[in-house]
């Protein structure tokens, strides 16, 4: 058995063989060619909005599907990115000229309404676009690192960790809602107009932003595939299923968990920033406890072990939601709740599982795929889960 030097190439790892290439091309063609061709700018923008949720789902595939860390609080990181971008856009829209009717011109309107007379210090970095973009990446790393260091080092079990992530996102929600003067409170930040002078509300801008969003999404997926193809990816799956053995092979598992959690956080944050850009506002209702669990269901429907599946899952669920919840609100809720149950019990591998079990063998006859399947996690209730 010889070592293929091409195996060690980063690009090869990111593409993931023939099958990976096909999956990439199909998604790329769908998002970059088909949809823009057939959808109006309005609907394209809507799709872009849904795709920004897909970032979170992709992150969850990494930390939950492969890493075994279920986070019910990804809204926290989506919010960090979303609010960072919103703060930048808001500052730009609050130049002294347009806000001259305010008591204190030059600061965002909600600050004025709440008797805040000076721009708080922590807002200042968001005056600069490079700083804001940097913070979109840095803030989630800092937060996720801090949150995960204590809990992974302390060997908190995955179930307790899931509960803690829920509390964390609830906490952020209260921070935003309780500080109307600093963050716009429950109404969020609205009236976002231009990005460094470029009006983001025009049709042309929305088209461009859509393509930027798709591009970043595909890049994120490729980066994730690369990670999974390295030894880190193998260790990640190993520690998910056999934690002790990996520890006793000399790996510091907490570092790996912290790493993958940070990766998921950064990706979610980028999604949040793109959301703000495409939708033009950000509010705490988009990032609380309930939306965070919604994002988990996107990943579950697509298949928690499938990066591409995460995108399809997100699009499907959000599409279904927008189609049905308006016309049949009662029925929709029954359906949506049942979706959680059905997916978990009948389709734990999501749509990707259906693909692997049924479509792929059929497709394999047409094209030769020889990729080995990664198994769905075998969860065990460990001794850390409170057996008396």
């Amino acid at each position, binding site marked *: *058995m*010889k*070592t293929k030097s091409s*195996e*060690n190439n980063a690009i090869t790892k990111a593409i993931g063989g023939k099958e990976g290439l096909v999956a990439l091309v199909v998604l790329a063609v769908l998002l970059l060619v088909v949809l823009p061709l057939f959808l109006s700018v309005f609907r394209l923008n809507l799709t872009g909005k849904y795709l920004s949720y897909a970032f979170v789902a992709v992150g969850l595939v990494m930390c939950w599907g492969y890493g075994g860390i279920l986070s019910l609080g990804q809204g926290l990181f989506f919010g960090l990115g979303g609010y960072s971008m919103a703060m930048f856009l808001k500052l730009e829209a609050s130049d002294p000229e347009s806000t001259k009717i305010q008591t204190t011109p030059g600061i965002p309107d909600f600050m004025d309404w709440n008797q805040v007379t000076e721009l708080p210090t922590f807002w200042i970095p968001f005056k600069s676009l490079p700083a804001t973009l940097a913070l979109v990446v840095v803030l989630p790393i800092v937060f996720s690192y801090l949150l995960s260091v204590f809990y992974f080092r302390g060997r908190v079990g995955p179930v307790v960790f899931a509960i803690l992530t829920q509390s964390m996102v609830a906490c952020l929600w209260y921070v935003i809602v309780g500080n109307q003067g600093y963050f716009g409170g429950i109404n969020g930040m609205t009236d976002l107009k231009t990005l460094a002078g470029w009006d983001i509300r025009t049709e042309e801008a929305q088209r461009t932003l859509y393509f930027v969003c798709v591009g970043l999404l595909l890049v994120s997926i490729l980066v994730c595939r690369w*990670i999974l193809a*390295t*030894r*880190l990816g*193998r*260790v990640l799956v*190993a520690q998910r*299923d*056999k934690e*002790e*053995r990996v*520890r*006793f*092979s*000399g*790996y*510091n*598992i907490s*570092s*790996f968990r912290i*790493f993958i959690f940070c990766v998921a956080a950064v990706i979610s944050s980028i999604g949040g920033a793109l959301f703000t850009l495409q939708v033009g506002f950000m509010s705490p209702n988009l990032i609380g406890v309930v939306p965070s669990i919604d994002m988990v269901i996107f990943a579950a429907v697509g298949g928690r072990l499938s990066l591409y599946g995460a995108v399809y899952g997100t699009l499907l669920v959000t599409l279904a939601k927008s189609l049905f919840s308006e016309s049949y609100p009662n029925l929709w809720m029954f359906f949506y709740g049942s979706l959680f149950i059905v997916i978990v019990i009948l389709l734990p591998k999501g749509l990707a599982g259906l693909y692997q079990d049924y479509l792929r063998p059929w497709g394999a006859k047409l094209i030769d795929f020889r990729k080995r399947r990664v*198994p769905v996690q075998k969860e065990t209730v460990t001794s850390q889960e409170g057996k008396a």
Partner: protein
Amino acid sequence: MSSGSSTDYLLAVEDLTVSFDGFKAVDSLTFYVDADELRVIIGPNGAGKTTVLDLISGKTAASEGSIKFNNQELLGKREHAIVRAGVGRKFQTPSIYEDLTVLENLEISFPWGRTVWGSLTFNRTPEISDKIHKVAEEIYLSDKLDEKAELLSHGQKQWLEIGMLLVQEPELMLLDEPVAGMSVKEREATAKLLKKVAKGRSIIIIEHDMEFVESIANRVTVLHMGKILAEGNMAEIKANETVKHVYLGD
């Protein structure tokens, strides 16, 4: 915890104590293991044998005492740090990665690239491949490299786990019942393997099979109720009245 008295021994366990809810599983245990020694620990069930291995490998935290490995204090260190210091542990039930092939099992145990960055940039070089092949030969699995670990027989799984330890090149190996569930032939092969492997390192084995113990042990330590009952070579132990009483109850 006792402080730094320097020692020539590879492993120096002194006054080791651990209690669970008041019950002393290990009670002021003191014993020493030389370099290049093959020590077997025996004792009735519940004597604390596995707990001792747990304590050395860092799986359980001790209440008192000290464990010095190459004059490094192991108590208080986390499992992966102890592994990296050169201590390898094999568990009672084979703990291998069932879904990976034998090759991948051995590769993932390879001691390079165990940090986050290291694992991201790890590449399977020819050198690593060679090493893995050598180990595979030693554990009688060189023709099974591409087979999924879950398809191996119980005995082969034990060998694989030993192989995963060998790949790390530990100075001290801790084996918990390595021949449990093996056929006679497999036991003989394992005895041969362990005797070969013991050159240049020390091994502590927990076992119940007396024939096996006799065929490989240099020294034997008998544990009972968390304390050392007797220590010596196999002949001495077999002649020891107290040991016979504890085992046979007369």
